[in-house]
């Protein structure tokens, strides 16, 4: 499963939307239920899925989903699915 699909599945789980469609330009304003607690839930689930840890400043700087993939890439998690 690709990194993008693994992240999509996390979003689908957090927002209880099995067919969740993930876009790079997506922000919290675009998703019903993307509140502060679900934001924390997303970050924790992504950290757990990819065995990475983020800094608070990195999370605060995320403008959209595309930035999240860039942050993952900075940890060595590329769209190919590793690690």
């Amino acid at each position, binding site marked *: 499963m690709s990194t993008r699909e693994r992240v999509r599945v996390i979003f689908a789980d957090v927002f209880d939307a099995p067919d969740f469609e993930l876009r790079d330009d997506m922000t919290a304003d675009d998703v019903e239920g993307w509140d502060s*607690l679900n934001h*924390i839930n997303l970050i924790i689930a992504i950290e757990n899925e990819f065995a990475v*840890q983020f*800094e*608070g400043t990195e999370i605060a700087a995320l403008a959209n989903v595309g930035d999240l993939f860039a942050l993952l890439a900075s940890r060595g998690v590329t769209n190919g699915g590793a690690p």
Partner: protein
Amino acid sequence: MTEIAELVEREFSALELGMAVEEEVVWNETDVEEFRRTTGDDAPVHRDAEFAGQIGMPGPIVFGLLVVTPFSRLLGCRLPGTLSIIQSLRFDFVLPVLAAEPLRYRVEVTQLSPATRSVTLALTVSRPDGSVVVRGRAQCGLAR
């Protein structure tokens, strides 16, 4: 009911994976009756042995939501402690609990997220023989 033994003020930076606390609790019939009156849950499976047997229970079972109440104390007072608030809780009720059974409660840190200052903890309630009656997961946020 166990008395509050300690109040632990622990900052996020002091948490470590694998850190754990345990305590033993025994529910008696008075606890069950008080919970019944507090909640208004008069379901016969909690008070009528014959009815409980008819639906496959070994006897009147302790309310599941009563069984998990010690986690409020364990999480809020001991681990993570007084600087934490519960963000989410999930429980699976694996086996029925009967009054007078000694139960072992355990809370263990399983994930730390510095970016969100949140901690994930595994929750278990088990019998003396080791069989798990409740398993769960808590996510708590820390103020600092």
